[in-house]
Each structure stands twice: as structure tokens, then as C-alpha cells.
């Protein structure tokens, strides 16, 4: 019996849940009444409204990825310099929320950010004026960063804690103080972790619709919301399919770019996904 037999369930799964739906999407994007058509593509490209939402999605995904990196790198760095046992306990605090359903976590933020929510109660009890948090871009960013931060911290932490201490000692030995050692040795060696962190945050962030739906409302609708609206609410399957394909192409491009960056780094090992 050939070993490849064991791959059969996986292949069946792939065909049923990935290939067939993709074909279905392609079909509804380009075929109308049994004829090939580019009408949906034209609609998707020409409407400034769709393009604005796409732009906003990209900007929000970029900003939240950057914020995750800005917060996540120092956290990962501090964790990696701790004793293994302490680091294990502390990293539980980041992993624990991930065991809770993503939607529940997002709903919880609604309770915090609502007009009569926890945050405003806290503010008024401290004598500050109430603020409006729900349905703002800031709130969407906050919740996105909250949800995806662990996906930034973990790969960076993994790579950092694998860096051999002797590299750091060698840098000190050659005259580098701690800051120079960080920028000349630690940071470059952790690039694979950064790249996979960015990939793991950027892609879900650009495709999300739950966060923007629950926290951003109509004000901060993202591309994912648009697709969902077209397909589910307004029933224009063709247009929705084209929008999905555009998003998919965007994701593939970003994966490709990340992969290139990693190859240029000249370092094939590391905590990357690909």
C-alpha cells in the first residue's frame, strides 16, 4: 500500500471545502446567464464606494499590524529574557483569551465600550465626561489589536527564545553594548518571527468582518462586511464573488511579499509558517 493513501482524507476535504467553493465563486463572478461576463468586475472596480472601503480595510489592517508589532515585540522580548518557568506562566495570560471564542471576546468589548458600558462607568465615577467609543475607527483598531496580539507575540517569542545566548555574548565580546547588540544581532535574527507574526496578524485583520460589524457598525464597515452584505443581504452573488476574489488576490500578494522578504533575509530557518 502506498503511503499517499493516507493523504486521501485530506485531499477529499480539500476538494469539498476549498476547491469546490472556489470554483463556485469563480463561476458566479464571471458567468451570468450562462455567458462569460466582466460586468461584476467593472462594478466592483468603478464604484468609488467599494474602493474606499477596500482602502480603509487595508489601512486599518496595516495600522493594527503595526500596533501589534509595536506592542508585541517588546512583550516577546521581555518574555524571552525571563526565566523559562516565569515566561510560561506569563504567556498563559496571552494565550488564555485565545481559548475563548473569538466572537465572545468581541462581544465582551461591546459591553466595555458601550455608551453605558464599563469604560464609561469608570470614567464618570472618576469625574471624567462620558465618551463615545462604539462605532469608531479607534474602537475597531483596539479590538483588532486585542484579538490578534497573541499571534504576533508567539512567533516572535519562539524565535527570540531560540536565539543562542552565545551570539549575544559574542557581540558583547566584540565591543557592542546592549543596545547595539539588540539592533545588530537580536533584531536581525528575529526577523523570521516578525515576518510570520505580521502575516498571522495582517491576513485575519484585512479579512475580518465580525469585529467591524460588532464594534464598528455602519461607520467603520470593512471589505469583509461588504462581501457579506452583497452575498447574504442583497443577494448579488456575482458582485460579492468578485469582491472576494479581489480580497483573495490581496492576501496572496501579501503572503508572497512576506515570503520574499524572508528569503532575502537569507535565513530559511525560524518560526515561520511557510
Amino acid at each position: 500500500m502506498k503511503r499517499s493513501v493516507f493523504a486521501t482524507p485530506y485531499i477529499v476535504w480539500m476538494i469539498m471545502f476549498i476547491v469546490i467553493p472556489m470554483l463556485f465563486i469563480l463561476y458566479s463572478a464571471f458567468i451570468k446567464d450562462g455567458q462569460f461576463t466582466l460586468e461584476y468586475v467593472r462594478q466592483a472596480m468603478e464604484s468609488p464606494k467599494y474602493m474606499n472601503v477596500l482602502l480603509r480595510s487595508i489601512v486599518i489592517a496595516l495600522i493594527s499590524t503595526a500596533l501589534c508589532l509595536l506592542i508585541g515585540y517588546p512583550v516577546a522580548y521581555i518574555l524571552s529574557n525571563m526565566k523559562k518557568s516565569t515566561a510560561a506562566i506569563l504567556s498563559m495570560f496571552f494565550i488564555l483569551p485565545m481559548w475563548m471564542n473569538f466572537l465572545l471576546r468581541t462581544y465582551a468589548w461591546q459591553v466595555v465600550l458601550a455608551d453605558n458600558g464599563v469604560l464609561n462607568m469608570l470614567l464618570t465615577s472618576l469625574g471624567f465626561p462620558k465618551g463615545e467609543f462604539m462605532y469608531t475607527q479607534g474602537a475597531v483598531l483596539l479590538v483588532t489589536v486585542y484579538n490578534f496580539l497573541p499571534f504576533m507575540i508567539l512567533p516572535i517569542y519562539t524565535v527570540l527564545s531560540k536565539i543562542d545566548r552565545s551570539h549575544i555574548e559574542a557581540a558583547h565580546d566584540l565591543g557592542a553594548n546592549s543596545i547595539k547588540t539588540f539592533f545588530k544581532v537580536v533584531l536581525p535574527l528575529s526577523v523570521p518571527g516578525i515576518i510570520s507574526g505580521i502575516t498571522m496578524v495582517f491576513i485575519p485583520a484585512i479579512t475580518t468582518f465580525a469585529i467591524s460589524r460588532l464594534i464598528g457598525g455602519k461607520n467603520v464597515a470593512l471589505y469583509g462586511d461588504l462581501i457579506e452584505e452583497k452575498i447574504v443581504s442583497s443577494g448579488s452573488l456575482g458582485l460579492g464573488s468578485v469582491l472576494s476574489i479581489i480580497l483573495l488576490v490581496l492576501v496572496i500578494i501579501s503572503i508572497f511579499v512576506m515570503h520574499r522578504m524572508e528569503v532575502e533575509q537569507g535565513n530559511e530557518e525560524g518560526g515561520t509558517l511557510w
Partner: protein
Amino acid sequence: MESNHLIELVNVTKEYSGEKALDNINLYIRNGEFLTLLGPSGCGKTTMLRIIAGFTMPTNGDVYLDGKRVNEVPPYKRRVNTVFQKYALFTHLNVFDNVAFGLKLKKVGKKEIQRRVESILELVNLKGYERRWIDQLSGGQQQRVAIARALVNDPEVLLLDEPLSALDKKLRKDMQVELKRMQQAVGITFVYVTHDQEEALTMSDTVVVMNEGKIQQIGTPQDIYNEPKNKFVAQFIGESNIIDGVMLQDYLVSFKGSAYQCVDTGFEPNEPVDVVIRPEDVDIVPLGSAPLTGVITDVVFMGVHYAITVNCNEFSLMVHTTDYVPVGEHVSVQILPDAIHVMKKPKTLDESEAIEATQEMKAIEEGMDAEEQ
């Protein structure tokens, strides 16, 4: 403290969770000296280097560099470079950038960096490997990059932790000569770690023999080889016959039932001692020409010489000689007075520690005298 003492360790002890990796080390290293730390695996050689480089803080005691106490000075402020036992090369940089790392930090000009890196790579036989990544090099090549990376900085002191261990015999010999030549030409102080006694004896000005965190003997290679201070040193350096004996009086030692003339003095009358006889210092002579007789029981050809075991009734003696003698032959063995080295027996623990401490101090003084002559 004398001015030519570049490095000085005073009462240095290093404990790892109660275990002493270094036990009350007193040692100075002179400017421009080639000093070798020699000892079996786990005796504390690397620990000693790490304390000099500043990666490890001594539990007790002080470290002086250039007469200044440096216990709290971080490694990057010490003019000391290290060739690490595990190389510790930067995997994100190519060979050139690895070697240039220290120079770039010192803001040396681009042209100058280029020149110095190229000449040092030529020296270690790695010309043309500048653009290679570290993981594309063999173990021996990596080791040579590590040497180049440290040496290119013109350090005051170069610490080398078994820097040639991954090289084949020929390359190792070449690199030994090369390192020695560079050390003499540039006048860098080398602190060299090895467990290869031959390497230690051929390269060093001073050899420090260590065991279990303690210095056993400090001296020139000749001292160490010809006048081992105790049984450990005698066994560790070269091959030895070590026999229980009794010092009858000055210049007269008895072992295995006979008395022999020797060159040693300063023992109590009838003090029990260890007698060391180097296999190459004794000679096999025709039966009857010397008092000690025996039967040849084993002959092994070693390349240059034969290793011959002579059974002399009560004990076996190892003899190295270039003359072949067949097994079973009855012979005499000639042991001349200067072939016999008499050593004090180690006492009970506390006592022997005290003795070793005084021996260390003596050894230090003797080392100094030897150098001054």
C-alpha cells in the same frame, strides 16, 4: 602588583549551585605571554576564560586587567576578545560581515575594514570565502572564521577556547604554527585553552595544569614535563610509570625493594612518596649491565618508537625505546638518577589543600624566576 602583569586573578572562586567550578584560583598572566590552561574536561577552563572576558562573575575574589579591578566592567568595555568553544558565529551575516563586526563597531573606515578583513582571512586560509554564509562552511572553516573575527580587532588579550579542536591534524599543526607566529609578531597576550597536552607543551610560554577547579601546577612546558608537582600532573602530561616508594634520605629513594640514587631533596626521612619514571627516560640494556632485571611481556610499535612492557617481578615498567626487543627476552633496565622524579603523596583533603595552596604560590614565584632568567 607588577606592571607587566596584564591579567591577575586573586582568590577567584566560582560556584554553580554549591559546586565549585573554580576553587581559589591565584594566577597572573604577563603581557605578551602565551599561557595555556590545560586540564581534563570539566575542570573549569572555560569558566576561567569567561571570568577573564567578563561573561561570568566570580563568586569570590577579584579580577585585575592592567592593574585595575574589573569585576564589574562589562565584556564590551574590556579590550579582550574571545574565540568561543562553540564558535558563536552570527548566522545572519556572511563571513566578511562576521569578521568585520568588531571593526564596524569601532567605526573603522570602510577601506581599512576591507583591507584588514581580507588580510586576516588570507591568514586563516579562507580567502575567497567572504560571501559565504556561516552554515555553508565546514566545522573547521567556521572555527577559523571565529579565530579571524577575534584576531582582526588587535585585542590586548586573546582568549582562545580550544580553537583548533575541529581541525584535522595537518591543518591543526599549520594553525598552531600560524597562531604562535602571530602572537609573537603582534605581541598579543594569548590565554589558550586545550586538553591536548602536546599542543600545550609545544605552543606555550607558560602552562597551567588544572584539575577539578584547582591549579595543579604552573610552569614552563619543560618544568611541567620534567618536574611534575604531583601524580595528577605526571599522569596527565605524557605517559608515566608511577610507583609507590619511600624517600630514605636526600638523594636516595627506595621502591619495590631496591634503593635508587635520585636528584630530589627536601623530604622527611622515610616519607612515603610517589615515584614518577617517564617511559622514554629508562633504557633496556643487556642482562647483567644494570641491577634491575625483568622479562619483556609486550611490544607495541608506535611509529617512531616501541612501547615495551617489562615485568620486573613485582611491577611492570613501561619503556619507550627505538630498539626492538622480542617478547620473552630477559633484560636489565637502567634507571639513571635524573630519570627518577619523586613527588609528595597527596595528604588527607584539608592538608593537601593547604599544601597545594603553598605549591601554587611557589609555582608562581618559580614561573617568574624562570621568565626573568
